[in-house]
């Protein structure tokens, strides 16, 4: 098998995810992948490339074209003792599965007083920035984060992608695993044997003292870039990668804001009723006396995702983040 890619050279996030799936399939015979086109094709992003060949069609299942079916069947498989890892082909196609996710997957443990377990991972390539057509650039995390019983995470690097996907699959809770598709081909070094950080812990990537800048998934790279530019302008930006959207590691952010007094959040999801608003609500509550400026949100606007030719202006790009940092510091 492709263990050769587990070396010191940088790998893409796609490769890291593929390795995570491979090792999960190797480690646990109850793990099984299912989705549209994940078999011979290896998925439209090749995340499952080679796995059907190596593990067989019973464990890497090309399903009929129906997302409700994929998640509904995963529920039954989980009840039979399996750990299904479902792929939803694109963010915009998860909605037919929302009923099974919200009324069944999220609730069955609670409804059964802990007798039933739903160790289901739902992988969804999410977010924009790849020049795609409609329904291929959505950021649906808020729908799931608002649903008790689901957990929602998003890695931002190949290393996290590898570690977090393995953790998600090993988790006895259902995890919506959001893959930032425009970072799929970015490379990074993965320490294949490292002990992973807790799945739901935020990570302080850069320490700073003037303002806290928070992102997750696709915006983390943008936040890091912004912090470099801001540094050139003499601004010390602390960058935090949330990693987990639900549960949200509020305390790491609050602790940071207590020091910086300022918070800017960057996410591609729509502003209103979105993830940035939740973090703002928590931080204003828990760090009330520390805040020297309101929490500012740099997000996708409250419009449908636009045609790809204008997506760069619509997304929370570096300039918009720098602008928000300026506005925060101007208070």
């Amino acid at each position, binding site marked *: 098998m492709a263990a050769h890619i587990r070396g010191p050279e940088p790998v893409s996030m796609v490769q890291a995810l593929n390795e995570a799936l491979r090792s999960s399939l190797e480690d646990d015979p109850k793990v*099984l992948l299912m989705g549209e086109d994940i078999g011979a094709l290896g998925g439209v992003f090749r995340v499952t490339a080679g796995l059907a060949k190596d593990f067989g069609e*019973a464990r890497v*299942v090309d*399903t*009929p074209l*129906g997302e*409700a*079916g994929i*998640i*509904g*069947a*995963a*529920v*039954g*498989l*989980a*009840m*039979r*003792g*399996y750990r*299904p890892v479902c792929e939803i082909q694109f963010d915009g196609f998860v909605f*037919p599965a929302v*009923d*099974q996710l919200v*009324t*069944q997957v999220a*609730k*069955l*443990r*609670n*409804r*059964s*007083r*802990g*007798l*039933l*377990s739903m160790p289901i991972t739902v992988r969804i390539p999410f977010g924009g920035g790849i020049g795609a057509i409609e329904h291929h650039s959505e950021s649906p995390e808020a729908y799931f984060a608002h649903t*008790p*019983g689901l*957990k929602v995470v998003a890695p931002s690097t190949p290393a996290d992608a590898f570690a977090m996907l393995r953790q998600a699959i090993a*988790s*006895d*809770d259902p995890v919506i695993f959001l893959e930032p598709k425009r970072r799929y081909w970015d490379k990074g070094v993965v320490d294949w044997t490292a002990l992973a950080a807790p799945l*739901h812990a935020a990570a302080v990537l850069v320490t700073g003292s003037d303002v806290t800048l928070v992102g997750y998934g696709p915006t983390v790279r943008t936040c890091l870039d912004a912090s470099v530019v801001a540094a050139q302008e003499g601004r010390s930006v602390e960058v935090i990668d949330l990693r987990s959207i*639900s*549960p*949200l590691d*509020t*305390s790491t952010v609050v602790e940071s804001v207590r020091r910086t007094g300022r918070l800017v959040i960057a996410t591609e999801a729509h502003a209103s009723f979105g993830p940035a608003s939740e973090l703002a609500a928590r931080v204003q509550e828990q760090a009330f006396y520390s805040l020297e400026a309101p929490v500012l949100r740099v997000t996708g606007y409250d419009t449908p995702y636009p045609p790809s030719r204008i997506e760069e202006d619509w997304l929370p790009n570096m300039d918009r983040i720098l602008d928000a940092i300026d506005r925060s510091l101007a208070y």
Partner: protein
Amino acid sequence: MIQLLDADGVRRDHPDYPLSISDGELRELYRDLVLVRRIDTEATALQRQGELGLWASLAGQEGAQIGAGRALRSQDYVFPTYREHGVAWCRDIDPVHILELFRGVSLAGGWDPSAHNMNLYTLVIGSQTLHSVGFAMGVVRDGMVGSGDTAADTAVLACFGDGATSQGDTNEAFVWAAASNLPVVFFCQNNQWAISEPVEKQSRVPLYQRAAGFGFPGVRVDGNDVLACLAVTRRALDDARSGQGPTLIEAYTYRMEAHTTSDDPTRYRNADEVARWAARDPIDRLRKHLDSRGLLDARFLDSVGEQSEQLAVRLRAATRAMPEPDPLSAFDHVYAEQTAELAQQRGQMREFLDSLEEVG
């Protein structure tokens, strides 16, 4: 429509569904039917007395449910709706657990699905059909189909109503079961009504015909004929276990009562119709048959009556004795691994409840 007992309780044979059944077994079926109906009338009474918030009656459908339920082997797995009290009975689930749901002390009834090989009640119409498909995929992967070991080979029974055939989920389940030749028996109780909507609003052809379009067999059985339901379900389960794939069974029956105790059927259906179906009562039918064969001696009837009475007494007492749930239990089992946010919210609720107690 497959029938093994006609409306007068006369036994008929059907070449495709031979049924050899002992006198003792026949009497046990009768006992099941009577006891299950007793659960139903008792629960309805408890609802009227305010002990239950709601009740969904199975009256009229006992034949279908006991027939299907008694066709199961213990290793088979059942996915019920909210009306499967008769099937649950056959799975040895204490009806008290069902009443917990309808009293509002638990969300979905408190039995252990794995202990009884029957999932909790599912209220969202159609959802459980997809669960049954997934479970069946697992059964196949476990090598428990067509292995030849009859104690191991396993089938899945997916229960749903006529109305559920209109849901996307149910039809997707048909697609999956057919495409992968899964060991699922789709058991549709066509009780003629989906709340106030007659089955004609859902389909203009008999429901069992739906299956052929997906590529697997469908059969209509007299749902008020417990023997026919037993024979037809048994055969379908055998087929499933031996690797011959899914079957759709349409058990043609009738919902004698309101949809639930909250419903008022006089708004949408007339008494004539109900009376016509009362004449086809599944218990009467089996009683006539047993009677004609001299199997209804007083001792047997007394024992059934007594057992029925004891059951009712127990249900009443158990319902009234159900402990009120602890409000803090809302926070239990949301996750396998509790989150900090939830732990904090739980703390807030506890503090708050404590403060009320101090005041009170």
